[in-house]
């Protein structure tokens, strides 16, 4: 039922924090049906993205051991809850508030907004969509830090990540900060839905977390031999992958921030890249080890999704298939390299899926950018005077786009690696980051949370 206008105008009159209301100030401008459609679509997209949290939880739970299953689910549940409160209080403000030095936002704390609505997405709509991204960025590290991190220490990390570290990354680009200002020739940085801003940011945090924690007991033999620690449930993993897959249609499609005809184009590149990624990973792992590993197939599909996230609006279907396929191959090589060579213990492959493929996907824009999206300008005059070409290297756009993509990637990497590094160091020095060896062996469920994740009537071993 639509409400009396009086309610609206009333709301418009209120200012103080306690009276705050995202619907503030809708009196000036009479919203159009397109406004209603756009906002409704983005709320639906936000719900899809929030659903991804369940996907992350299941993938991580399935790829780790039964004795830690409750802890993993809990971490994914609570970092979403923490992200919601933190992003509402300060995160959204840091990300989208009035710019200060291209670095951080300075207003909109607690969604306080004095401006009047003039069409497009409301503050509430923007918040609900962006907070879902904040939750995702925070939860990526959870998988890499699985099976050995203290619960409260992880909570502190996810609070700082979603309240400050990630919002600043967002501000750098979507908030109109230093990355948004990057320009080389006519090429400006392009990351449509967050291969760099969300996924590589989460990936770098995951890398730092895994390094600070060190590997799980028994993961690497004294002789340096690598010992696989088998995930306890592939059905959980693949169910999670399916959930992430459909959630991604909200993640990428919603990033159009409008209900227009491009949403379907985005859905097509998203689906194709995901599928090509799964196929690429299966072929790569089967080639490497002779067996089509199920968990790797899941990683591959996610790799395809992460890889197309930056270019979903500017890359053609064929470009998406190539980008996704290579992302799938890359994730396999990366997982093996990080595990066997770097000996960094990432139980779920989060660093490879989100970090490495986030970087790849961002670079892919420099190669395959074909038509314009919200950020990439596909048409501009070239030195030789010719016009209207695409900015991607493979379409004659030259290397400018590629270089600017690289710069954006490096800025985000530097920021996240430094800040999370300091954060983990601080946590380690104070409340401690890792559980005791005995607890790790017995499992985190009982010692961190009081009871096993699977009841005594289900025979699972420590």
């Amino acid at each position, binding site marked *: 039922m639509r409400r009396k206008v009086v309610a609206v105008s009333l709301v418009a009159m209120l200012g103080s924090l306690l009276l705050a209301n995202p619907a503030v100030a809708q009196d000036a401008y009479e919203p159009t049906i397109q406004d209603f459609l756009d906002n409704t679509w983005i709320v639906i997209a936000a719900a899809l993205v929030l659903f991804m949290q369940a996907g992350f939880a299941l993938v991580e739970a399935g790829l780790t051991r039964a004795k830690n299953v409750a802890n993993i689910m809990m971490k994914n549940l609570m970092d979403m809850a923490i992200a919601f409160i933190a992003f509402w209080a300060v995160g959204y403000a840091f990300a989208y508030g009035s710019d200060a030095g291209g670095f951080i936002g300075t207003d909109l704390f607690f969604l306080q907004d004095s401006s009047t609505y003039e069409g497009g997405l409301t503050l509430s709509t923007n918040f609900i969509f962006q907070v879902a991204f904040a939750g995702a960025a925070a939860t990526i590290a959870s998988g890499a830090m699985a099976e050995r991190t203290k619960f409260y220490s992880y909570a502190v990390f996810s609070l700082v990540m979603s309240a400050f570290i990630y919002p600043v990354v967002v501000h750098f680009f979507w908030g109109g900060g230093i990355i948004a200002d990057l320009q080389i020739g006519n090429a400006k940085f392009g990351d449509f839905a967050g291969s760099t801003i969300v996924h590589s940011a989460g990936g770098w945090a995951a890398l730092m977390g895994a390094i600070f924690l060190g590997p799980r007991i028994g993961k690497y033999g004294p002789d340096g031999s690598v010992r*696989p620690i088998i995930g306890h449930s592939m059905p959980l993993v693949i169910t999670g992958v399916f959930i992430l897959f459909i959630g991604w249609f909200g993640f990428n499609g919603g990033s159009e921030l409008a209900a227009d005809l491009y949403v379907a184009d985005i859905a097509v590149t998203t689906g194709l890249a995901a599928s090509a990624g799964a196929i690429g990973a299966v072929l790569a*792992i089967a080639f490497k080890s002779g067996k089509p590993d199920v968990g*790797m197939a899941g990683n591959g599909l996610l790799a395809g999704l992460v890889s197309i996230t930056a270019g979903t609006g500017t890359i053609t279907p064929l470009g998406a298939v190539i980008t996704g396929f290579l992302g799938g191959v890359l994730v396999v090589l990366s997982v093996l390299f990080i595990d066997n060579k770097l000996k960094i213990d990432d139980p779920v492959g989060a660093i490879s899926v989100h970090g490495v493929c986030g970087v790849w996907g961002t670079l892919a824009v420099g190669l395959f950018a074909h038509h314009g999206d919200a950020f990439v300008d596909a048409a501009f005059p070239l030195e030789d005077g010719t016009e209207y070409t695409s900015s991607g290297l493979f379409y004659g756009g030259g290397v400018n786009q590629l270089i600017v993509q690289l710069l954006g990637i490096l800025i985000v990497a530097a920021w996240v690696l430094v800040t999370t590094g300091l954060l983990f160091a601080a946590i380690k020095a104070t409340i401690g980051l890792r559980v005791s060896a005995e607890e790790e062996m017995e499992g985190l469920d009982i010692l961190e949370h009081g009871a096993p994740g699977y009841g005594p009537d289900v025979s699972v071993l420590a």
Partner: protein
Amino acid sequence: MQLITAVIKPHMLDEVKEALRGVGISGMTATEVKGFGRQGGHTETYRGAEYQVDFVPKVKLEIVVDSQDVGKVTEAITAAAQTGKIGDGKIWVTPVDTLIRIRTGELNADAV
């Protein structure tokens, strides 16, 4: 009384159970176990890494019988559980001093 312990391949359980019924065995206790032996294990690969699995699934049967029945029972098991392939398992026989039926307190032969 004697306790006959047989370690067999899991999918032979039904055959062995029927064979034992055939020789008049009315009770037994089965346990899922893992066996290490000549059969060896197998290699698995997970996320590209190979690893060795030494213990293979087996079923252990425990049957307390009258000493005079030991022969026919072990023969019945051997006959039923044999596939001829390595890993068919073992049977070992150990002495039992007393057998008690909890429900009635009956002893030995009466308790079987």
